[in-house]
């Protein structure tokens, strides 16, 4: 597997403009001759589809939900970063670049991260022009708030619904192109395979969720915008349909998978309360602007929070990290919450929670101000927990949220399969080992609106593109493979459900294994155990999963089974990746590699690389390759937020 990052040379600030100049273009009149498939309609997929169609390409877009507006980007609450420096507080493109690469614990490519910071400002302009109702100051200018890992205020927001509003902007742009006929939209389709012809991606195989029909779609280029794989843990803040299938199938067809063990555990989520629970709910990081995190000073203090006097409270983030306080990056906040709970100082019925307290902010700024800022989040919290954060402190605990790992891509966002691109959370490109808050929306839209079109033009301009029929042998083979796999999954169900397991039972078992051994804290022994246990769960799935119904109808159990089957395979490279990275960095805490203060200890001499996994065959051990990370403009330092 060859890993050429194609990161341009030259000064940091010139790399992107030089690259755009040196990339080939496609003449506007010729663009309509080329067809592009986009899978996924979140921020990355919808913005890419709209932009490519506006430029004149023929686009076919696919989504799993009933409408492109429902992709999980919609659930992002807090905001989107940009280096506008509207607050005049010392921000710049270089500072956003530096904060992002430092926040990622120096495990991302300099050139990519700089480009992200560079285009961030255009994203805000684009979204404003679309009519996205960002929050405004009384004078009518755009408002900002602060997020973790930064000492400037650079986050743009629309109440607690920023992701929704940005997605509806991109969905509007996409809808406009559907109306003109330049985008053909396919809803309720799940991607089952990438079709590779002579080493190039030439199409996809999808399952029509409404009819069960397996369909082939050919194009000159395939773009995956299929999100992250957090649901491998069963419980996460991801939507129920979020899955690894598209990325995993691409991997099995030859796309390298980078840093699969890099998973962000978000510090402010509503704690788990029962076995029946189907998902975890995030409370925006913006709450840490005004909320103070604390636990009782003594173990097992079961007094009500209001009855615990100031002197008996431990504001551990403020005490330990005086300069960033409650706004330390997510990985640091999560790890500290776990540490406090491990000490036995956790609160709530399970002891797996810490307080997030607004009392002081309410006293300082008044009830009205605080409610205006966070009212909708408070309501959401109250609906779920039956407790009002204006009256008593919230209880929060970390939960799986975002995956920094993903398909390996070069500077042009192309995977190791020529003609197959990956954008948004689905790729690994910009966040290193930890993503800063309000940067996912930025990356999704940067990739979709401002980067991918240049890459596509270059690919089409430098390669001989041959038209291939959807009836050609590779499409037929892929279709047959997909059908066989579904038949194999359904085969177990003959003879009834007795003695068999449901999909969710097996998924929960997988989730527990991954959370216990490859979650917030990881060590060699645990990871090795997980590697032994995983094949047993996989075997159990293929031997005894029970699926009601048939393949030729709406069958939600079958849909879930297909996804779980892929999570079971994918789990292996996650564990192996965590095992081989014998250092701590960002989200990845190897318990063997910590400083005296229990902070992550990086090992730059041995692990300053991206680990990229290659699929070697179904029963074979995957092969790891390394893309070395070279830092010319920043000096990797031990992160300190003290």
């Amino acid at each position, binding site marked *: 597997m060859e890993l050429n990052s194609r990161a341009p040379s030259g000064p940091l600030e010139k790399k992107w403009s030089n690259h755009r100049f040196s990339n080939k273009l496609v003449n506007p009149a010729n663009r309509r001759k080329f067809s592009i498939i986009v899978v996924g309609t979140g921020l990355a997929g919808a913005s890419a589809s709209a932009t490519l169609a506006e430029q004149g390409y023929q686009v076919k877009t696919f989504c799993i939900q009933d409408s492109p507006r429902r992709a999980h980007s919609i659930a992002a609450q807090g905001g989107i970063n940009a280096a506008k420096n509207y607050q005049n507080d010392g921000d710049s493109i270089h500072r956003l670049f530096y904060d992002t690469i430092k926040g990622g614990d120096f495990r991302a490519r300099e050139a990519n991260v700089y480009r992200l910071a560079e285009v961030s400002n255009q994203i805000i302009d684009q979204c404003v022009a679309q009519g996205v109702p960002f929050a405004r100051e009384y004078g009518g200018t755009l408002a900002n708030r602060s997020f973790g890992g930064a000492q400037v205020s650079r986050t743009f927001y629309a109440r607690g619904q920023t992701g929704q509003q940005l997605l509806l902007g991109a969905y509007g742009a996409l809808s406009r192109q559907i109306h003109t006929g330049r985008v053909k939209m396919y809803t309720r389709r799940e991607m089952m395979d990438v079709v590779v012809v002579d080493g190039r991606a030439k199409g996809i195989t999808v399952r029509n969720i409404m009819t069960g029909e397996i369909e082939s779609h050919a194009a000159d280029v395939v773009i995956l915008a299929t999100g992250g794989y957090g649901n491998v843990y069963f419980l996460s803040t991801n939507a129920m349909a979020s899955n690894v299938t598209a990325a995993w199938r691409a991997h099995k067809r030859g796309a390298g998978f980078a840093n699969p063990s890099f998973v962000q555990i978000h510090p402010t989520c509503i704690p788990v309360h029962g076995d029946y629970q189907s*998902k975890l709910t995030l409370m925006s990081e913006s709450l840490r602007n005004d909320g103070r995190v604390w636990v009782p000073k003594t173990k097992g203090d079961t007094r009500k929070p209001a009855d615990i006097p100031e002197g008996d409270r431990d504001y551990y983030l403020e005490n330990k990290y005086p300069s960033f306080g409650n706004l330390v990056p997510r990985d640091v906040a999560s790890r500290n919450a776990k540490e406090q709970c491990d000490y036995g100082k956790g609160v709530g019925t399970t002891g797996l929670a810490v307080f997030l307290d607004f009392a002081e902010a309410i006293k300082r700024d008044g009830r009205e101000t605080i409610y205006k800022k966070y009212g909708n989040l408070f309501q959401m919290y109250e609906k779920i927990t039956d407790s009002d954060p204006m009256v008593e402190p919230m209880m929060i605990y970390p939960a799986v949220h975002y995956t920094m790992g993903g398909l390996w891509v070069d500077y042009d966002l192309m995977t190791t399969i020529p003609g197959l691109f990956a954008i948004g959370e689905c790729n690994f490109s910009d966040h290193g080992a930890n993503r800063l808050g309000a940067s996912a929306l930025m990356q999704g839209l940067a990739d979709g609106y401002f980067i991918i079109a240049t890459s596509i033009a270059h690919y089409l301009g430098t390669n001989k593109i041959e038209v291939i029929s959807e009836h050609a042998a590779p499409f037929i083979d892929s279709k047959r493979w997909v059908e066989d796999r579904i038949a194999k999954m359904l085969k177990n169900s003959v003879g009834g459900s007795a003695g068999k397991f449901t999909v969710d039972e097996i998924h929960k078992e997988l989730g527990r294994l991954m959370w216990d051994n490859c979650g917030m804290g990881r060590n060699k022994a645990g990871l090795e155990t997980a590697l032994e246990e995983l094949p047993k769960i996989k075997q159990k799935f293929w031997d005894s999963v029970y699926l009601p119904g048939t393949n030729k109808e709406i069958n939600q159990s079958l849909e879930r089974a297909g996804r779980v089957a892929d999570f079971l395979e994918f789990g292996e490279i996650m564990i192996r990746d965590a095992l081989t990275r014998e250092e701590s960095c960002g989200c990845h805490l190897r318990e063997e590699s910590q400083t005296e203060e229990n902070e992550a200890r990086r090992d730059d001499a041995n692990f300053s690389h991206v680990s990229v996994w290659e699929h070697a065959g179904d029963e074979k051990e995957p092969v790891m390759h390394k893309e070395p990370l070279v830092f010319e403009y920043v000096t990797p330092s031990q992160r300190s937020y003290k």
Partner: protein
Amino acid sequence: MSSINLTLKIWRQPNSDALGAFEMYNLDGIHTDMSFLEMLDVLNEKLTKEGKDPVAFDHDCREGICGMCGAVVNGIAHGPEKEVTLCQLHMRHFKSGDILVIEPFRSRAYPIKKDLLVDRSALDRIIQAGGYVSVNTGGTPDGNSIPIPSQQAELAMDAAACIGCGACVASCPNGAAMLFTSAKISQLALLPQGQVERKKRALAMVAQMDKEGFGNCTNARECEAVCPKGISIRNIARMNKEFLKAVLTEG
């Protein structure tokens, strides 16, 4: 944590062409901290274990923002609690012994696909007809070059909060999609960015709404009562005004 026992009466319909009917299920030991959809998950696990067909229902984010879930519970779209989607309705609002009648969102423009799962693509087509600002990617002016009074931005945001769940249609005696359509028309009519296409947009979206077979508003206000995002019917008044102005000057 307490638990309750329920009787569920759920609409079962294998596909669009089949005749549907209610079926009864007893479900015991439901924790009151569960969400409504988690309760349906428990039922489905039970049905699967018994070798029966689980109830099909749409859902995705389960945090009240994607707009994918929804059913009519005891005659009310998204159930008895105000301003929540079905996924954010919790079982603490019910008591042991309750009978819950659960049906799909019904409307002429929403064909039932299976059980509680319906086709709401008509709503997408209304947006496609003009629910956007026609601006291409790139070359847009600096974000701060268009100052927008904070109050105006807030009003636009109130309308923009619509999640497209379609409960408004299901609860309207006329099967109107006017709350949905007016939310988008209002958002863009309130913002300077929406002015250029203001009239064209109102005409096109209303025309598409009619074409899809949705009815018209007669001020029953049922839509507003069930809207999980509290979208006000003032938006419908604004839409009517926008439409009338457009018809008189352009139509």
